[in-house]
């Protein structure tokens, strides 16, 4: 049973924020400007992004509100009524509530009656997991239509108060704590939504999902991006093991952290999965018209890319497309926000028959996910 993405939507809270303004929104920790902001922003090359908190670090949109707004836009653009939707899959790194699952909350906001739901938990790749669950449900003819939503509200974890409260953390101890600050200047907020159906949209272009694959390497590598540990060498406690949440926060166990030294492994494992799919005859790089990658291409500007070129399986730069630099890195939501804009953008002529390879790597504990779409018309 072929399955199609027949509508898309996205929601980006507030105005675009340029790099200089970011610290006004997230706040200067203890009133001091960051030593690392400019360096990290230069490296990630993100020019503008959006936040669901204001200059006083007050939340302007909840995560569920953002997810709902993206979903509403997607449904408004669809050629079916919302009663036909049989399943809602929602992905986020952290919902507004640790429990219940975020899909319950989004369902309530959307007022979708008696549907099947799934909340996927993870980081960037959780959106691919939600998409795959919905895709499989339609393939099994369980439903005729499914809504897949991914939303991220990272800024609540990145606001100055979080770091100021971490008085006994590595961040407080070290003059420069790159691992703890790295994601502060990297992530931002937003939501994206995709509608899946068992037939193409009667008007305009749809995207047939040809295949979806994922390879996780958590068995081999230590954790690279996380919340829940103090990040101190040898520390085995996680946030709920402390006597109080206040103590966990003081120790820095609630700060979002990236082990930057391990980060290259996600590029390597991304290439490994890509080559595995070539070897299995699933991925045919020469036939890919558009490559949508959650990572910015300059991360691949290294020897591995040169080797892929030598090996005859690189995708030429002109076929890469991203909106990461203007919409920001919104984690799990990024790929859906990218697909939405890609299909509407005037700077690329998407036409029937075009083949699109999407790649969503997750550095958390090294999960790499890939899916392939073909542009079809009614």
């Amino acid at each position, binding site marked *: 049973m072929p399955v199609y993405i027949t509508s898309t939507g996205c929601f980006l809270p507030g105005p675009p924020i340029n790099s200089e303004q970011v610290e006004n929104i997230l706040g200067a920790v203890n009133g001091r400007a960051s030593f690392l902001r400019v360096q990290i922003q230069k490296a990630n090359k993100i020019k503008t992004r959006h936040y669901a908190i204001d200059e006083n670090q007050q939340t302007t949109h909840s995560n569920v509100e953002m997810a709902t707004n993206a979903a509403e836009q997607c449904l408004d653009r669809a050629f079916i009524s919302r009663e036909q939707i049989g399943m809602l899959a929602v992905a986020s790194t952290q919902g507004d509530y640790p429990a219940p699952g975020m899909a319950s909350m989004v369902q309530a906001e959307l007022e979708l009656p008696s549907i099947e739901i799934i909340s996927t938990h993870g980081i960037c790749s959780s959106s691919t997991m939600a998409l795959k669950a919905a895709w499989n449900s339609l393939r099994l003819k369980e439903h005729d239509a499914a809504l897949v939503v991914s939303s991220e509200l990272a800024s609540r974890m990145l606001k100055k108060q979080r770091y100021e409260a971490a008085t006994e953390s590595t961040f407080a101890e070290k003059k420069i704590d790159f691992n703890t600050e790295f994601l502060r200047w990297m992530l931002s907020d937003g939501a994206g939504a995709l509608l899946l159906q068992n037939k193409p949209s009667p008007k305009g272009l749809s995207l047939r999902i040809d295949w979806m694959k994922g390879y996780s390497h958590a068995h081999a*590598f*230590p954790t690279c991006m996380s919340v829940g540990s103090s990040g101190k060498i040898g520390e085995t406690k996680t946030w709920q093991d402390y006597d109080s949440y206040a103590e966990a926060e003081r120790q820095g166990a609630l700060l979002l952290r990236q082990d930057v030294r391990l980060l290259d492994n996600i590029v390597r494992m991304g290439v490994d999965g890509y080559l595995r799919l070539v*070897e299995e005859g699933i991925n045919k790089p020469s036939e890919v018209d558009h490559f949508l990658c959650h990572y910015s291409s300059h991360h691949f500007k290294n020897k591995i890319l040169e080797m892929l070129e*030598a090996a005859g399986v690189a995708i030429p730069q002109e076929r890469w497309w991203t909106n990461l630099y203007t919409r920001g890195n919104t984690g799990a939501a990024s790929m859906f926000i990218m697909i939405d804009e890609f299909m509407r953008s005037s700077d690329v002529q998407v036409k029937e028959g075009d083949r699109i390879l999407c790649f969503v790597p997750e550095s958390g504990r090294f999960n790499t996910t890939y899916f392939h779409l073909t542009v079809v018309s009614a």
Partner: protein
Amino acid sequence: MSDGEIVIREGPVDEEDENIETISLNPHAQVCLQQLLRVWLGFERDLSTVPLIRRIDLGTYTVDDHLCFLRNLRQQVIEGSRWIARTASSFDSEYSEIRSRIIQHAMDEHKDYELIEKDYIASGGDLEDIQGMSKNVGSEALHGFLMYRSSRPNPIDLLGAMWIIEGLGEKMASSWAERIQELTGLGEDSTRFMAYHGHNDEDHMQLFYEMLEVVCISQKSVDIIVKTAKVVARLYRLQLEEIEYEIK
């Protein structure tokens, strides 16, 4: 804007004007390189599960770990120049160009173990200890396999072995040498052997591609090169796993 000099446009990603040299490999060599890349990436990933290497990742690697690592590494490096020299001598005149390159390579590296001994002393070890060390179980297996393969006529599959061992040399230099100093408080003189292998890496890759282009001209050659790379990767990891038995 703080990042005024960076030009970013909406849509197709910015292409930076880097001079990536185009290497034109034949289709068999291309497939071989694809598979060798996967063997390497899998090897590199699985190294992260080796307890000693995991401690480098987790930040719990100690001076004792380093001494133990060097003691075990020395045996493999001594034997390394032997199989490379044997490989050279097993090529007939049809491969004379390859043969001269491999002889040169053996020349370059055959006294590298002396550098390891110096690192060992600088790390606080005694020369007699490292010189008195015998090959661990993994080193025995690795060396045995390499000598067997290199003794066969025109052993082109040893290119797969070089791919893994040279790749590891580069990884030691780029990922381990500085990190080990940082974790142990030892000086630069404790990791000279590891750091040294990062040099001339670009040239090594170019040479590798040239050799691959010459020898990898059939599916059969792809298969034996990749197979040897896989065996060497597994035995090399065994060698590193066996270090733990000495620690215990």
